[in-house]
């Protein structure tokens, strides 16, 4: 049964598009403005009325970003730390998640719920004792805390939670068959369960990478040397000697830090959605 169309189809289509475009403006405009401002100098940035297309393209801003501090090194730091955190988290949390989902062992439920408490803990709460602990180990001003803390903290627990959900949703026949054939747990895990868990690993990888990429307080507390900074810290450091932001440098650097991630995301967009879709995150 179709209702007689009183409104022409193209009109509703256009209305939909307009609504979507309107909705997406606050999501997109900051990027446009950020990119455009990164080409301006301070005067033009605050000019009134504001210009979206800069009058002159000051590529110099981007060069200055690298001259002001070891920005390339800091960029690399963020990348490799996030990569290490992601790999370590995937390993540790998939093992733990599998165990909670599939292996019966005493206190497993208790331990799992205990770990969920880590989710309730903002990093600000645990960071001071962790700071003292790292000091004891002589690991302050290194990258070690930045790699280790996310793996075992709330980010890692979220990962374990997701992996457990996913493993719970897998049918058990394959594993049972393998068990009958005499395969041990490690074998079952590495050869059967893990390969099947790719969508969940995808979600976990993405979330963990983003968490590490964006973290601000941990590097602030643990890292002193400019060479060891990560991107969020570095972006915040583009200030002059009086603490005032050097807008043109900050925005140019922000553009540089955001564009590659966006490009990767756009290219991998389908996989991202599929990962979440199949990972059982929906409950």
């Amino acid at each position: 049964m179709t209702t007689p169309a009183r409104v022409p189809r193209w009109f509703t289509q256009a209305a939909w598009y307009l609504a979507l475009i309107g909705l997406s403006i606050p999501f997109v405009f900051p990027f446009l403005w950020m990119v455009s401002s990164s080409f301006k100098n301070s005067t033009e940035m605050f000019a009134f009325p504001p210009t979206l297309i800069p009058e002159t393209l000051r590529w110099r801003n981007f060069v200055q970003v690298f001259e002001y501090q070891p920005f390339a090194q800091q960029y690399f730091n963020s990348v490799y730390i996030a990569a290490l955190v992601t790999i370590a988290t995937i390993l540790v949390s998939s093992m733990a998640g599998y165990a909670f989902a599939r292996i019966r062992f005493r206190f497993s439920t208790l331990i799992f719920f205990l770990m969920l408490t880590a989710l309730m803990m903002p990093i600000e709460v645990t960071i001071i004792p962790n700071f003292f602990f790292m000091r004891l180990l002589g690991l302050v001003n290194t990258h070690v805390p930045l790699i280790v803390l996310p793996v075992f903290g709330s980010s890692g627990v979220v990962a374990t939670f997701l992996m457990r959900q996913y493993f719970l949703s897998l049918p058990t026949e394959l594993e049972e068959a393998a068990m009958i054939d005499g395969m041990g747990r490690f074998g079952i895990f590495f050869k059967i369960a893990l390969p099947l868990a790719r969508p969940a690993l995808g979600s976990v990888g993405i979330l963990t990478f983003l968490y590490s990429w964006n973290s601000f307080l941990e590097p602030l507390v643990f890292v002193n040397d400019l060479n060891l900074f990560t991107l969020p810290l570095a972006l915040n450091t583009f200030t002059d000697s009086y603490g005032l932001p050097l807008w043109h440098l900050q925005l140019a650097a922000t553009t540089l830090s955001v564009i590659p991630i966006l490009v990767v995301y756009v290219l991998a967009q389908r996989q991202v959605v599929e990962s979440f879709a199949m990972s059982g995150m929906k409950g």
Partner: protein
Amino acid sequence: MKLARFVLPAVLLVALTSLATAQQLRFTVWSGNEAHLSMLNGFADGFAEMRPGVSVQFDVIPFGDYVQKVTLQLAGGNPPDLGWLAEASAPTFIDAGVLADVSDALRNDPDYDFADFSEPALGLWERGDAVYGVPFSTSPFIVYFNRDLFEQAGLTPPDVLAEQGAWTWEALKESAAAIADGSDAFGFESVDGEGYGARVWHTLVPIVRGYGGEAWSDGACRLDSPEAVEAVQLYHDMVYEDASAVPPGEQGDFFTGRSGITITQLSRVSKLAEADFDWGLAPMPSGPAEDVAVIGQAAVVVFEAGQQTELATEFLAYMTNKENVAVMAEFFPPARRSVLDSEAFLSSNPMVTPQQMEIVASGIAGGRVLPNHPNFPQIDAAARPVFDELWNADADVAAVMTRVCDAIDAQLQ
């Protein structure tokens, strides 16, 4: 082949001995400015000539996080050897016992001439006979004005008014209003444009003092006194009645020509290098009560927790000797009288005429630092939210100032 056998041990030996004699001092600063850093590295090189094998590494920490990060470093077991320290943190750090007393080394060296330092400038850094820091920058707040905007509005510029003895806060208010009325620009921009945030003290205290008030004294808050209220009311009127002062959240950057007057320190003059307008400097306006200049200070300190306090003290002494203070004078107004009085100082900055430098010199000689207190972070945190209540058109200034005092009284004990 036989020779090769000796090469490796020899290399190791040389490496080991150079490791033994190679010492590095870590020095935290908050300026990433190229010119500043190359000057500092110049000092490091000069020091290395005196003490071979010693190098100095300057770590730049952004000003906004400086105190936190230095504290974390001190608490984290890898303390820096030396560092800059701003006046606001001086009482806190001295009380905490984390700064080394350098008085012996400085007083006992005749070449150093410790007496050359102006007493008022040292005030904040001394406790009795002990000296916990040597100020490298004693920078008075001065008035910058946009000559073009003044001409456009047909006003007598501040430097001329100052010579006539007519450069008062009232005169500043009127000039700002005239400029704002007659052009697109604002009349007045608060210190670094941050007058409603981090620099609210810098903005209000000079006016308060000019009217005979003070922030606090003898453990009691005096911001609710009639003089202080009158002073703050003047500024409030500038923002909300005259619409001449840049209001909270707006941009009115003096250094890009968007405001007619601003008050800030000498070092900002480097921002005028690319200015497309004619500008000038003038002393702070005088109030009905006092003419005392307000100064901001930063000192070099040695950290007690560092592993090489003796060597660090030596470097501090080197950096702040007569010769090097004269070099620093290009960027950082000195606390040494001999340098202040010298011709070289008056012509040390290519952008500033000797006459203008006189303003700076007299500011240093008699200036007082902003109100300070060991609990300053807590006082600031308690006061600022209340100050925020000032910034709307119908604020009752007297009532707000009373509430500020209520908020900070406990901390002032």
